[in-house]
């Protein structure tokens, strides 16, 4: 056994994926957000966002088990969350993941000459999974109400046509799972006849509409548990974006028209599915809930709350604050009122003076804005905001990379990663408000040695933070590079696109002439090829790109016509800033980046 660097144990706040947390633990670490307020409405919902943005957390928070902890443990101690309403329905969380989705897909490949049976086998798997989860909910309700479930169980066996089965919740589940095992046995043997016969023997509800079996089970529960059955059910299908297409189609159709007793809570990628594009329906039939943040500042309140809870849990302190551990980010722009930052001798003042001495174009910029390059002090807040605060991040970046270019002799590896990406706001921005990413970053940062440089400085040293964040950025790019490409596509189109845009944006910040208004985002225009549009869709799903804004209540109905930027996770790797800045037509950016090497390699040439 080889010894490798120890990864310390994470708490429930450190879990990378809510899918693997019990609902009770999800509730213990939950930070309420506005999307959750919308999700509890008595309305069908489509939770939209990239992987890891917290969709599963919200679905699990709807469940009885999570709500019990929320009500019993959290609210008594945290009354500030009291205005977050409890769901007025009984939620059944129906899980999914990449493994299951790929395995369902593999059934189609195994039965390529029998597509109808392949789909029936998938339908049976989905229906069984949903009923299995429903039985867990029925069991919990019965237990909480001290109800003898025998009559209900017998009725369930009868009405779901389970055949001879002992009337207990575990036995029913085992029976159902046994049906999947029979399908699997046929698949392993490639015995299509046996699969066909088995599927024919299954009750029609299990190979029919995706919701038939589970809704039937709920109805039986209502009939046989009078007085304790909920008035409404919410069927919460996770990861619908990677489910078989027939399931997606049926769910979207059901969003528009299904038994009012059942609400659907579905998850989806950041672009509205084409099945739902008749836009006027959206308001009435379902609410599309956006789960991503176009601007870094939008995610900050959630990130701060999550990080505070995380730190207090992991560092077993009731008072520690994010700023104590990570310190401020040099890019933070909410410091205009602090005269120490921009005043004579302050950190921003020093950086600007230093850059002005070496970058004639910035020197000129200051003069043009009525500021002295030797002493760029603005007493008037509006001038400070407009001329100094706005450009501070660009100045910092130019200062860091300008050194790199000028000081060729002493250039070292660390210059590739200048220590400017650290501090509370940088961590928040990189996470994109995505709890899985944020928990991952915080875990890694806390796994390092906590030794402040001086008394009063952050516990996590800025250079160490910078190194960890750079590695995380690099790893994000690895994830993009290794994400399976679409069959038939030409090589690594997505990672090549990300790389092209990352370099383009970096060059925008380091143009020979200081530019206070660089390009930071892209408008996806009609001249962009279909191949690029397809790559953008994948990139949005896996979080390589983020929608900045788009028409129609900020829910994009297509990639075309939307405004996007690169994920801030990629900022340290490409040397970018946590700002959206102005937009540019994507087709133009791609054309320029293909033809102009001057901008691309300014750093090296300088």
């Amino acid at each position: 056994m080889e010894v490798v660097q120890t990864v310390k144990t994470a708490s429930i706040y450190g879990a990378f994926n809510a899918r693997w947390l019990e609902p009770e633990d999800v509730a213990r670490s939950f930070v309420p957000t506005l999307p959750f307020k919308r999700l509890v409405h008595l309305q069908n919902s489509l939770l939209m966002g990239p992987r890891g943005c917290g969709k599963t957390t919200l679905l699990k928070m709807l469940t009885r088990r999570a709500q019990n902890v929320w009500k019993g443990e959290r609210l008594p101690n945290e009354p500030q969350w009291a205005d977050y309403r409890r769901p007025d329905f009984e939620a059944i969380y129906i899980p999914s993941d990449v493994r299951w989705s790929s395995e369902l897909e593999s059934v189609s490949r195994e039965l390529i000459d029998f597509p109808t049976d392949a789909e029936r086998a998938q339908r049976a798997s989905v229906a069984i999974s949903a009923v299995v989860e429903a039985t867990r909910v029925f069991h919990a309700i019965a237990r909480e109400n001290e109800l003898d479930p025998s009559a209900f169980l017998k009725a369930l066996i009868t009405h779901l046509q389970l055949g001879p089965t002992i009337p207990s919740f575990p036995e029913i589940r085992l029976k159902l799972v046994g049906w999947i095992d029979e399908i699997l046995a046929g698949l392993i043997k490639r015995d299509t006849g046996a699969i066909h016969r088995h599927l024919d023997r299954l009750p029609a509800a299990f190979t029919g509409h995706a919701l038939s079996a589970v809704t039937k089970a709920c109805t039986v529960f209502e009939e046989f548990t009078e007085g304790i059955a909920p008035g409404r059910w919410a069927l919460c299908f996770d990861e619908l974006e990677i489910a078989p297409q027939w399931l997606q189609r049926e769910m979207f159709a059901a969003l528009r028209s299904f038994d009012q007793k059942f609400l659907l809570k579905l998850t989806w990628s950041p672009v509205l599915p084409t099945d739902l594009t008749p836009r006027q329906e959206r308001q009435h039939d379902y609410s599309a809930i956006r789960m991503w943040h176009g601007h870094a500042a939008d995610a900050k309140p959630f990130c701060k709350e999550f990080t505070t809870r995380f730190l207090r849990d992991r560092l077993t302190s009731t008072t520690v604050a994010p700023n104590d551990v990570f310190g401020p980010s040099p890019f933070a722009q909410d410091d205009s009122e602090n005269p120490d930052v921009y005043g004579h001798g302050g950190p921003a003042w020093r950086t600007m003076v230093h850059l002005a001495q070496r970058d004639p174009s910035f020197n000129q910029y200051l003069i043009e804005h009525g500021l002295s390059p030797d002493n760029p002090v603005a007493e008037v807040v509006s001038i400070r905001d407009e001329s100094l605060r706005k450009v501070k991040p660009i100045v910092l970046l130019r200062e860091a990379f300008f050194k790199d270019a000028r000081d060729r002799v002493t250039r070292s590896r660390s210059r590739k990663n200048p220590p400017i990406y650290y501090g509370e706001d940088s961590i928040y921005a990189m996470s994109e408000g995505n709890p899985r990413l944020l928990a991952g970053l915080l875990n890694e940062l806390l796994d390092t040695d906590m030794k402040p440089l001086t008394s009063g400085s952050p516990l996590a040293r800025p250079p160490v933070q910078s190194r960890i964040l750079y590695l995380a950025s690099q790893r994000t790019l690895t994830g993009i590079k290794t994400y399976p490409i679409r069959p038939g596509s030409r090589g690594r189109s997505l990672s090549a696109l990300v790389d092209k845009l990352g370099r383009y944006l970096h060059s925008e910040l380091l143009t020979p002439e200081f530019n206070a208004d660089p390009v930071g985002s892209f408008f996806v225009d009609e001249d962009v090829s279909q191949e690029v549009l397809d790559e953008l869709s994948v990139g949005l799903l896996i979080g390589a790109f983020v929608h900045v804004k788009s028409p129609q209540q900020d829910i994009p109905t297509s990639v075309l016509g939307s405004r996007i930027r690169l994920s801030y996770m990629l900022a340290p790797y490409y040397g970018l800033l946590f700002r959206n800045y102005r937009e540019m037509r994507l087709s133009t950016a791609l054309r320029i980046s293909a033809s102009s090497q001057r901008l691309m390699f300014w750093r090296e040439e300088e």
Partner: protein
Amino acid sequence: MHLKSLRESTLGELSDRCSAFVAACGYEHRSVEITRLVRGPERRVALCFNEWPEAIARVDNQREFVERGFDLEVVGGNDANKVQEIVSRVAQSPSPSGKAVAFDISSMTRAWHGAIVRELRTMEADSDVETFFAYVPAKFRKPPAHSSPNEFVGPVHGFAALSTPDLPISAVIGLGYERERALGLQQLLDPERTVLMVPRGGDQDPYYPQVRNSNRHILTRTQRDWVFEYSLAEPAATFATLSSIVSGLRDSYRVVLASLGPKVFGLLCFLLATRFSDVSVWRVSSGIHGEPRDAHADLDRVVVISAVWGPGPR
């Protein structure tokens, strides 16, 4: 049939006991090396890759297979069904009682490995059947500077478990030396528990530092209790270790086995999955984007496995 036992063996034993031998005819120089050392089996079949019919040593290899009395079968690198049909024919063709079937897996794809094991698993037999798997590693070459993209990442034909997603995933990944492929698989699967299997071929193994270096990110992010080194020269011991790990994980996880490294580890994954139908075996393939890359056999490190299959299910 079900897998009864597995042990280490030799090419001599393979030559003495086998009546049928199946090899792969590809573009690697390695393709023919084991064949040159095997005597005896009267029934000989070479699975010739459909892809890259003229690359590197492919033409010479094919000529040599013909000279050595092999029947040629042209098969696509991902065509598991055809390989199953061929294995079924070869393994069930009349032969003197007690004779075994051998496979040189060195130049085969993982899809073919899966097809072979799947066919053996589903075959019906009245008595025990012995199979031999021979593998010769390639002599060390640095990995390509730019690895090809992943076109297919998913379960191998016949090794998708279909378990409902009510338990978290555990990924048991056999590391290879291509940069960060394992990290990519981990990010895609997003397992709660990752187990890494690191191949080690002795103190002088040039692959070992390369594997560690190419996977440094995933190695530093994985708890050291879940990083295991295994010896390529001891496949039976590796099989026992893998079996123990998977048995322990199955109660709490849905296990995915994936081999990105030496093919013999991939074979062990398939063999193990015949014992646990709830365990999936995944492969990562670059599809049409992979470029031919030669491999020369390191004949000092030939590995032979004997696997005995009993009639009926376990």
